């Protein structure tokens, strides 16, 4: 009997990798490789999600990550995030004002009539989720005709690029507190570990690249009763945000490009006011790369829940506990640790068996 252990690991890995790449190309002669532009435009919500969870706004590499990971969101975000580790931090942007967002969709569930008006944009919110059987064998001609027809039928309108914020109106009425000036430099979670207590900027950054499902699950627990945020969506907007960076030599701010983001502001019931102050509604904020409304809303609720926990001095439920929320929402961390259980644990299990056998023997001897 030879050495049993785990010989030949190298060969096995290479084989498994080759097989995975075969699966990607399994269609064979009839198949066409997915090009990254197709992924970016036809799988745009998947693409959004990967950029946001990967924490890197790079549309082409995000599409590549989706392609090579066969559409696994966690894996794709992971590859993108790992690529990020090879890149130095060169510049810091100033605070970017989302009032300058080039809006493609904005809604408010607080008021029917908001300054600038509701703008539904592209959404499945009111769609019947019926399978469109005609897409099963959609021809390239039919596919192109849809875009052509839509563009032809769309009248020229004078929709402005930017819209006023709903929150500004609430503030003007004294229903919301004035925004606090940001305290110091924002916490950079890519350069500093979370050592609790952490500032709100660290919490927001962690949530912004958190895994959508994880954020949703914890926010949902708050919605269902393990918490009492009871949010109202004051404004949800999707659009392109101009990114300003200081010129490396002159220091003058220049527009380096724009990023698609989703932003959500929720208003929650008022709490006790500080002495001598009028009570006001409270605010929760969510924002992420790409178009991902569930994530932005969940994040806003969690931001509010975490602030509630802090205000009460003690978290009353998991969604108010910064350690519980912030250390468990990262998809790269959690999926990595989950998959690591597939690695060999021979030594530790040998040690476990030793304890169990010894304990069993102890008990037996005790009885005798």
């Amino acid at each position, binding site marked *: *009997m030879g050495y049993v*252990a785990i010989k030949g*690991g190298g060969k096995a890995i290479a084989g498994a990798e080759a097989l995975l790449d075969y699966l990607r190309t399994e269609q064979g002669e009839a198949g066409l490789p997915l090009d990254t532009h197709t992924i970016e435009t036809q799988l745009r919500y998947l693409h959004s999600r990967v950029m946001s969870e990967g924490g890197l706004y790079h549309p082409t590499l995000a599409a590549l990550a989706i392609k090579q990971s066969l559409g696994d969101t966690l894996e794709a975000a992971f590859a993108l995030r790992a690529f990020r*580790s090879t890149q*130095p*931090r060169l510049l810091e942007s100033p605070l970017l004002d989302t009032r300058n967002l080039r809006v493609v969709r904005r809604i408010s569930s607080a008021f029917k009539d908001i300054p600038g008006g509701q703008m539904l944009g592209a959404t499945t919110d009111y769609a019947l989720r019926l399978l469109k059987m005609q897409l099963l064998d959609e021809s390239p001609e039919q596919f192109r005709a849809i875009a052509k027809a839509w563009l032809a039928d769309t009248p020229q309108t004078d929709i402005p690029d930017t819209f006023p914020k709903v929150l500004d109106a609430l503030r003007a009425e004294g229903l919301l507190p004035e925004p606090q000036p940001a305290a110091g430099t924002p916490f950079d979670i890519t350069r500093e570990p979370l050592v609790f207590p952490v500032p709100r900027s660290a919490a927001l950054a962690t949530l912004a690249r958190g895994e959508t499902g994880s954020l949703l699950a914890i926010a949902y627990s708050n919605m269902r009763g393990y918490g009492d945020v009871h949010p109202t969506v004051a404004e949800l907007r999707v659009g392109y945000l101009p990114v300003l960076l200081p010129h490396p030599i002159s220091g003058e701010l220049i527009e380096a490009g724009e990023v698609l983001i989703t932003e959500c502001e929720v208003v929650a019931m008022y709490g006790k006011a500080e002495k001598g102050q009028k009570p006001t509604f409270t605010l929760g904020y969510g924002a992420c790369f790409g178009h991902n409304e569930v994530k932005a809303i969940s994040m806003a609720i969690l931001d509010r829940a975490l602030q509630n926990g802090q205000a009460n001095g003690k978290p009353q439920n998991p969604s108010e506990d910064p350690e519980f929320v912030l250390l468990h929402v990262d998809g790269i961390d959690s999926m990595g640790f989950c*998959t690591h259980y597939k690695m*060999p644990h021979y030594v530790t299990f*040998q040690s476990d068996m030793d304890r169990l056998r*010894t304990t069993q023997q102890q008990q037996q001897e005790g009885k005798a």
Partner: protein
Amino acid sequence: MSTATDYPFGFLDSYAKKEVRRTVLKAIAIPGYQVPYSSREMPMGRGFGTGGLQLTLSLIGEGETLKVIDQGSDDSVNAVNLRHFIELTCPSINTTTRTQEATLIQSRHRIPEQPLREDQVLVLQVPYPDPLVIVEPSETRRKVMHGEADYSRLLVKLYEDLVHFKEITISHRYPTRINGHYVIDPSPIPRYDVPKLHQSPALLLFGAGREKKVYAVPPYTLAEPLVFDDVPFRTEDFTDRVSGERRACQRCGSRDSFLDEFSDPNTGGKVYQCSDSDYCTQQQEQAHGE
């Protein structure tokens, strides 16, 4: 950008490596203290040794000789994977399987059988850096307990074990007090390896990537497993209960190594082999040489 060879030496950008090295210096200066660091994402899963990997990539330089093991074996899947990645991103280093030839050893779950030397560094991969996590889930509260060297709740857990089972049931990751103050989780090494931490000539570094912590047992430092005066620390028992003899490795015949247990497909009985594959091979070579 598209191929691995275009990545910088050691994969990480140089600021990241510098940060890790500064973290290591702090960890050495405060033996057993868990130093937080930012911990970059690596291209393998969190939990697959990314903490150890970041230490290795930040410390290794041209011409150094690296050994990577997992479960004691150089050829286990994860060890191969990590070694391959390090070779890919650090083209001018050497690798070896022989413990005595390595200047830097990255390991998961084992400390090599062969005693380490002063000119060697052992990097251990850590899934859970904090031994207090079994009694206190909140990190904020655990930090206070560590600062005050308050390990009473861990000792209570050990005591409760003795009451319930007449045995301390912690099998691996045995809490160990370093330099008389901080208690560490020595990573999932078996209890058999814990005494090797004590007064080790080699620098022992512990990297937890997901939990973003680095800690160290510097050379020649006290490392004492947490026990009671009247209950001695016990390592895994490889005594054959029938013959009363210590079991031997069926390959090299060693009677003092940590053993893996297998079922013999022919006889259905149990057979034992060294978990440290390099040690086993070298024992055999010596036997043949004589």
